[in-house]
């Protein structure tokens, strides 16, 4: 993601003072997370966008690149009640809602589980290794993400401030369960985390003892830089204040058309039959999410209008996991989908 030349912290004319204050908070939040997460400014920026767009995030990457550290750092800087759960093959939906144990008197007891532990105030629910959990668990998670509610102990629980962070590594395929399309569509973004390329950052990560003890590293971060309860209102204000011009709307619709009918748009990928490449995807919800994320990005960049650059910056994280390929191409997804997205932006004219 290319950062704009606009200076951070600049007042954005035409925006309400609250939004400018929120923007200062957002930049402070990024700076705070950046103290623990080095060499990943794009990931941190995308996480910030997701928070203000009120969307859930799935991090994907190799083992040991810092996915969990990133999510913990974000949760810490965001503040508010935080809960995590590890995905395992024997995890059942009830394990998320209830904790069953035998008490001192030898009687079985059932207490609220990880999701309900903090009541309806829960701010961040962190699902580690989500692809190790069974589809039953995914389906509960689907409801939690889509409706921000669950049914337990005979009543409905609502989590108005909840964001779900999940991660999965892309190395292992054994004893894992691919997320259903519906569940993937509920994630606003699927962010790929790679090993930092900058030699200086690598040296720091390997030799600086600060990065060896993750618990202390996370504890060193200031807690609650953002007011997590206000994020919903701020997100709504951003969506209403940041303008999308007719030219941008046509541009986004052009991108959408190109993704849905790549052959008509003149997109060619070597060794791929463009007629049968796509099985579906790029749903209206997905494109809506794209515009939401682009608005937040424009606001973070200090503008009151969305530019094609904003759309491009959030396109892959928001759209790539919503494009469903024919099974024979699914194996090569890692190469095909980025190439498809790249060519979409090479073909669709702006303005």
């Amino acid at each position, binding site marked *: 993601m290319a950062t704009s030349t606009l200076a951070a912290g600049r007042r954005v004319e035409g925006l309400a003072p609250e939004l400018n204050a929120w923007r200062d908070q957002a930049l402070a939040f990024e700076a705070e997370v950046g103290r623990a997460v080095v060499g990943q400014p794009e990931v941190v920026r995308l996480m910030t966008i997701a928070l203000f767009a009120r969307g859930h995030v799935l991090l994907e990457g190799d083992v040991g690149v810092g996915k969990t550290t990133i999510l913990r750092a974000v949760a810490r800087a965001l503040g508010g009640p935080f809960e995590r759960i590890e995905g395992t093959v024997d995890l059942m939906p009830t394990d998320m809602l209830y904790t069953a144990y035998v008490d001192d008197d030898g009687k079985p007891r059932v207490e609220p589980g990880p999701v309900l532990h903090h009541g309806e105030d829960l701010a961040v629910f962190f699902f580690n290794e989500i692809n190790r959990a069974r589809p039953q668990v995914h389906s509960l998670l689907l409801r939690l993400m889509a409706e921000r509610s669950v049914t337990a102990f005979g009543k409905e629980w609502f989590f108005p401030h909840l964001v779900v962070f999940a991660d999965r590594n892309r190395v292992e395929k054994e004893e894992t369960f691919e997320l259903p399309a519906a569940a993937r569509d509920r994630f606003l973004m699927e962010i790929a985390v790679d090993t930092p390329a900058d030699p200086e950052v690598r040296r720091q990560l390997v030799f600086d003892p600060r990065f060896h003890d993750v618990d202390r590293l996370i504890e060193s971060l200031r807690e609650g830089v953002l007011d997590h309860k206000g994020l919903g209102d701020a997100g709504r204000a951003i969506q209403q204040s940041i303008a999308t011009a007719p030219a941008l709307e046509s541009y986004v619709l052009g991108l959408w058309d190109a993704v849905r009918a790549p052959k008509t748009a003149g997109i060619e990928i070597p060794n791929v039959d463009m007629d049968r490449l796509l099985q579906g995807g790029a749903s209206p919800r997905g494109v809506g999410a794209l515009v939401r994320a682009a608005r937040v990005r424009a606001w973070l960049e200090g503008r009151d209008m969305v530019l094609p650059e904003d759309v491009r910056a959030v396109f892959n994280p928001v759209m790539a996991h919503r494009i469903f390929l024919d099974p024979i191409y699914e194996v090569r997804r890692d190469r095909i989908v980025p190439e498809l997205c790249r060519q979409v932006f090479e073909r669709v004219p*702006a303005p």
Partner: protein
Amino acid sequence: MRRAALAFALALAMAAPAAAQVRDVRTSGPKPFGVLLGDVFTLRTSFVADAPYTLDPASLPKTGALTYAIDLRRLDVTESAAPGGGVRYEITAEYQTFYSALETRTETVPQMSLSVVDGKGGRKEFKAGGWAYITSPLRPLITTSGETQYDLRPDAVPPRISLRPAQTAALWSAGAALLALLLLAWSRAWPPFHTRPSRPFTRAARVVAKRAPTGEAGWREALIDLHRAFDATAGKRLLGDDLGAFLAQRPAFARHEAGIRAFFDASRRVFFGGAAPAATGLSADALTRLARDLAGAERAS
């Protein structure tokens, strides 16, 4: 009586110069016989005109057909000073005779009617340059049998003109034409040069110059035309944030960086910020100039 004698003397005195206005008229020519059909001969006529008289050039005969059979081919007049203050004229006239004589006979070159003038209205005409010569047939009238040497000879065989220089020139011209065609094909990106990098800015500069001054809609279209030229040059859709990389890759355009950035800024504000074209500060003139500069940079790169 005395009066009559005086008048006579006066008349004599006045007549004497008049009589002496043209004198010493002579004509000389070649031998006056043996002149045959087609022969050229020259007559020289000389005379002295006393001062203040001079030869009137208008009285000289014109070259061309003089009589039925004689042409005057050339006429030269030379002047020289004559003793006694006059001018000596020598007229060299070249004649050709076309008289086909059937028998030996005398032909005459007519005399020229010449005039001398004194510049004050005085004029004196005289005749000179007549000549007679004897001409005869080229051969006996009745051909002697068996004598073929006087028959018409066959036409001369036309000379064979060498075509080599013309062929060489044609070859060179064909080569030059082919080269020019290749150059034209290259400049127009016709096959086989259609794969060479085209010149999108050159094309855009023409369109922008036409459209930009035609009002708001034209200005917007010109902006889009220039965008497409940037896209074609970059090989992809170029957005404002990509400018740094674009300019680093194509240093020829870096000289116009300020103008390019102003263009992208104006485009953003108009297309995505809803600003009026006038509010962007990018006038039609500036846009046309930028397009022209970029086309120049493109040619230089």
